[in-house]
């Protein structure tokens, strides 16, 4: 297919710019191939994140011509021959370097969402569910956590200040999945979605559904049903009356609603490495300001371990601490 024009954002937290490149493109290639060719031929220190190249790991999210996409699933044949293809990092999260952003926000939100609560008196292994009851939740299990939906959502993309209050579409499908789960024992998922996840911020403009590479109908099948469930609980006088009459309100609170809630501000211990954390050290740069990353000229087999070179794996088990305050 010949030589094509590209613009790739290069830079880091201190600033950056779109740089122009001309790269060879072959039949059947995807944008990620081109990023790799750039790395191999012109920019050895171009940072990008990827893993499976099969649209299943969700690592390679970038914005291509302004649209949030998986770079491993965007075929070069979808562009015109003379088109300049612009590749930028996803915008909503802090930049680390070049095409790599820090998506920690999403893991914080994931940690805040209360996990599946098993029903009382049923031992693990004895869970029985009918297919039609779990069907709806199964759609949401297709999520590959590419966070493209989180990136495109204007609630946080255009309003950084909403981040503490808003969990985002990826976690609304999680909320819906658990609220629809036939065996989940929690009764407060609707309240949680509304009060702690910021469901009300979503104005159902459907951008999350438009970008989801797994084609999950995020808005129609998760967010809107969750909004309706919140209305059931909160705003529908008929349902409210029914609950009062049939005393269903007393069932609520069967699970203590404060259990399992984690908040971003709370200190989170994370993994205990069993020794002091290594001090940050700057990477060695060559004369051109680039990292020396070609294996041929590099004095070691790969880049330095972020855990420090003296860290042995697996970690000593007594030091491990996957601490969660409920467990």
């Amino acid at each position, binding site marked *: 297919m010949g030589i094509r024009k590209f613009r790739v954002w290069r830079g880091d937290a201190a600033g950056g710019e779109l740089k122009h490149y001309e790269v060879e493109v072959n039949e059947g290639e995807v944008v990620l191939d081109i990023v790799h060719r750039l790395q191999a031929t012109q920019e050895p220190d171009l940072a990008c994140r990827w893993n499976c190249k099969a649209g299943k790991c969700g690592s390679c999210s970038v914005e291509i011509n302004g649209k949030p996409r998986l770079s491993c699933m965007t075929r070069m044949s979808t562009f015109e021959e003379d088109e300049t293809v612009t590749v930028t990092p996803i*915008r909503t999260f802090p930049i680390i370097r070049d095409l790599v952003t820090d998506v920690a926000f999403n893991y914080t939100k994931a940690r805040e969402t209360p996990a599946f609560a098993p029903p009382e008196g049923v031992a693990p292994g004895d869970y029985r569910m009918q297919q039609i009851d779990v069907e709806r939740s199964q759609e949401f299990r297709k999520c590959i956590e590419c966070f493209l939906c989180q990136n495109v959502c204007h609630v946080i993309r255009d309003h950084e200040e909403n981040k503490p209050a808003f969990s985002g579409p990826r976690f609304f499908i999680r909320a819906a999945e658990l609220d629809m789960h036939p065996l989940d024992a929690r009764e407060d998922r609707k309240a949680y979605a509304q009060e702690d996840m910021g469901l*009300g*911020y979503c104005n159902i*403009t459907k951008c999350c559904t438009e970008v989801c590479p797994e084609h999950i109908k995020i808005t129609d099948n998760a967010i809107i049903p969750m909004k*309706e469930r919140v209305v059931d609980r909160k705003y*529908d006088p008929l349902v409210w009356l029914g609950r009062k009459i049939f005393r269903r309100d007393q069932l609520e609170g069967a699970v203590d609603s404060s259990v399992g809630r984690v908040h971003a501000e709370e200190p989170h211990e994370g993994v205990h490495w069993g020794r002091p954390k290594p001090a940050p050290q700057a990477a060695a740069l060559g004369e051109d300001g680039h990292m020396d990353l070609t294996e041929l000229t590099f004095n070691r087999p790969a880049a330095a371990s972020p855990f420090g070179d003296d860290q042995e794996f697996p970690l000593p088990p007594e030091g491990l601490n996957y601490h969660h305050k409920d467990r």
Partner: protein
Amino acid sequence: MTTTAMRPSKARPRAAIAAKTLRTDKWRTPPLTIGAILLLFIVYSTVRLFMGRYYVVGDYGYLTPLYSPCLFKDCVPAASHFGQPLPAMPFFIPLGAIVFPVVAGFRLTCYYYRKAYYRSLWLSPQACAVQEPHKKYTGETRFPLILQNSHRFFFYLAAVVLAINVWDALHTFRGADGHFGMGLGTLIIWINVLALAGYTASCHACRHAFGGKLKHFSKHPLRYRMWVLISKLNPKHGFYAMVSLWTVMATDFYIMAVSAGWFSDLRFFN
């Protein structure tokens, strides 16, 4: 310069990209088109609402959906399929005052239309991955937008209005002599009723009420069936929303034109 050894700290900057969007496709077209259609409908229905004339073709039983049910003393008798229990109203209360708040509220709080006008008329956001112009955003968390949660009540009322529309449409099989007859108007009115039925049945609140709210489908086989059926219609909700907007306008326009004598109804028989 960021190095591999840098550690995350709070509030770090995003990539410094100044462009509001880097999209190169024609992302302006859909919101502009939809916005134009919505404005057209708003203007058209307002004008028609306050016109107070040409809303019924008595001979053939055609009644525009914008005025049905017509329950006021000053309605044309042929338009009042449900009698006239209410007194005549001053000029600023139009004859369609019964149905208008219901259908307007239904469409205003509809999940599809919300998307449509948030994008087209409020630019929040105008298109995906395009920066919106607003400084602050609280979504539907506070007044007035929190009232969008009332959608299901409008759905219940709209279901009644749909039944009334069907009743009205049954009156259209009539010729000038009072016996069975059919004309182009009959066809148009029935197409409109079908579009409205599709729109109402595919509503998200409907899907929720009939089965979506359940946790255990297996315990409610009938409601599960209903839910499956509605879930098949539901993805086309936006389509029905737009189609029914046009059919309502077309139906009303046709009845206005025939009633005002701009052209006469094309009769198939009688």
